[in-house]
């Protein structure tokens, strides 16, 4: 046996110098450190809204759905509007994570984690409204196909059943996607934390060490989940739109609904990501990770989807006129000039007109403008669903089914509470999980360094 050369052995036993932590780790894990008074104040506000809504909901369970503003012929009100709104918000995360991943759009790395988190929270928020809307919450399991003594099965020809399967699948897949992406980052956090955090991250990171086998199966998993989630994200809002389009209600019965809803969902989802990430970037000083370039790219998406949504508004009016169906024409006339005219014009202005300023680079790169616009778009997209759902139901074919709906105070509190529900999840997420996909940002940095380029 040949002994190793002496100088080499000496080098081997010399203790390795302690490597300094990477800048990316420090910058991104810092977000989780400490909580300020402002954070507590916002969290308390969110929780306040959430608990107020919870209280009102318990009251509604006790009194019955009569306390909602439902009145003949309108039995789908603010709850369904808000359900569709939150399902729509949930679309940006998967779009950014899955579709942009498949297109190898590297700019997604800075925002995909927070967008995925928003997807999960928005689906959870939306799911609450199914329970709230059915009223008799203790019977909501009737929607599931379970064996029962009456040998009755659910009606799989109903769009509501499709929706159950679509939303359940979407919630499950988005949680899996979110979690799988988190595993390497949880290991980063595990290696740099103590106490309960270390215990939590140790369990959640599953003992991740970044070995070849782990990365190889992880990459393949992310690729497959992206491949599965891409058709899924397009199907979910299509199925939600079929809840309406499969009926014969004027204003709902349109073949354009699926692409129209999907574009609207991506539109509102991107707006929500901007609404949440602009303050987060500012507060935690992440300007070098989430740059104006990322916001500009997102605003391009907003502009594109705004044009699609605007086209759909136009197409709906054209088809109503061109079809010659009187009920359809009257429904659309009343949409713009009837009892819900304010909602309609809010929708058109916020979704189709205001976003046109994004044609100008100055607007796309001016963060305050983007923030205000994103909030306006969120408002506009809530009103879009309001206009479609309430506007459609309030004027069907027969004067016996004409009516006007006004949301009641319990509905408004529960709708406001849903924003609290969503925000408290997001605020806790900021403090528990890495807000940016650290490993993916690092991938780009190491790659850039190896090839002598800058980030």
């Amino acid at each position, binding site marked *: 046996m040949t002994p190793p050369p002496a100088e080499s052995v000496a*080098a081997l*036993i010399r203790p390795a110098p302690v490597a300094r932590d990477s800048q990316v780790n420090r910058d991104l894990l810092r977000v989780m450190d400490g909580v300020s008074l402002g954070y507590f104040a916002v969290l308390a506000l969110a929780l306040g809204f959430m608990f107020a809504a919870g209280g009102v909901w318990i009251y509604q369970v006790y009194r019955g759905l009569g306390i909602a503003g439902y009145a003949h012929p309108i039995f789908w009100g603010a709850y369904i509007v808000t359900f569709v709104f939150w399902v729509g918000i949930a679309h940006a995360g998967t779009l950014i994570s899955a579709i942009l991943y498949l297109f190898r759009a590297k700019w997604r790395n800075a925002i995909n984690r927070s967008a995925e988190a928003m997807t999960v929270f928005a689906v959870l928020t939306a799911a609450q409204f199914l329970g709230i809307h059915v009223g008799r919450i203790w019977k909501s399991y009737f929607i599931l*196909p379970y064996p029962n003594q009456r040998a009755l099965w659910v009606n799989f020809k109903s769009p509501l059943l499709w929706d159950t399967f*679509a939303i359940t699948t979407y919630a499950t897949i988005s949680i899996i996607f979110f979690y799988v992406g988190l595993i390497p980052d949880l290991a980063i956090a595990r*290696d740099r934390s103590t106490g309960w955090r270390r215990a939590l991250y140790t369990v959640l990171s599953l003992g991740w060490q970044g070995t070849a*086998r782990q990365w190889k199966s992880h*990459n393949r998993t992310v690729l497959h989940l992206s491949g*599965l989630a891409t058709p899924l994200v397009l199907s979910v809002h299509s199925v939600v739109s079929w809840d309406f389009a499969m009926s014969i209600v004027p204003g709902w019965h349109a073949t354009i609904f699926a692409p129209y809803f999907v574009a609207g969902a991506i539109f509102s989802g991107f707006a929500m990501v901007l609404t949440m990430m602009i303050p987060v970037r500012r507060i935690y000083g992440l300007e070098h990770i989430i740059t104006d370039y990322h916001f500009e790219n997102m605003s391009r998406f907003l502009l594109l989807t705004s044009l699609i949504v605007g086209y759909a508004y136009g197409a709906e009016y054209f088809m109503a006129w061109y079809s010659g169906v009187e009920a359809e024409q009257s429904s659309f006339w009343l949409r713009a000039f009837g009892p819900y005219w304010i909602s309609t014009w809010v929708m058109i202005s916020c979704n189709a007109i205001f976003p046109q300023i994004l044609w100008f680079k100055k607007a796309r790169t001016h963060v305050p403008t983007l923030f205000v616009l994103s909030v306006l778009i969120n408002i506009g997209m809530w009103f879009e669903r309001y206009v479609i759902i309430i506007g459609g139901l309030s004027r069907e074919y027969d004067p016996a089914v004409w009516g006007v709906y006004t949301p009641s105070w319990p509905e408004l509190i529960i709708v406001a509470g849903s924003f609290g529900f969503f925000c408290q999840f997001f605020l806790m997420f900021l403090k528990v999980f890495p807000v940016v996909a650290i490993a993916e940002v690092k991938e780009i940095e190491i790659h850039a360094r190896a090839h002598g380029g800058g980030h």
Partner: protein
Amino acid sequence: MPQLLGVFTEPAHIAAAARRLRDRGFTDLETFSPAPFAEVDDALLPKPSGVRGWTLAGGLAGVVTGYAMTIWMANNWQIMLGGKPFSSIPPYTIIAFELTILFGGVMTLVGLLVVGRLPSFRAHKAYSARFSAEDFGLVVRCRERDVAEIDGLMREHHATEVSLVEA
């Protein structure tokens, strides 16, 4: 048997070192990367990941379950709805589609756990927090007499440091 740990700063270097070691017949290798780099993983495991099979199995199970469940349930207790056939394929395709994605996604996660051998709570002796910072690690288990050769080979491939892993 001794284990040597080489530390690298660039993925191309560690990948080249790993390939070279494999060519020299050292097959008991392990790498630690802070981020996904296909060249590093492929140097150790050239074959495509087995997660593929799990996704396929899940997807197929989903599509079969979707159609079988809807058709069987509709015929188990027949209720005529709108004059439509009991086994209406177009609406059931939506259920089958959603279950394809659902089962495929869940089985992909299972595949990650099985193929990636997770969870594994016994930490590798050579692993340290630097490999979740920016360094790459290459661990070789070898005979005593090969230590010098491997040490030289790693340094030749720009290893910033090489050390023995304590047993």
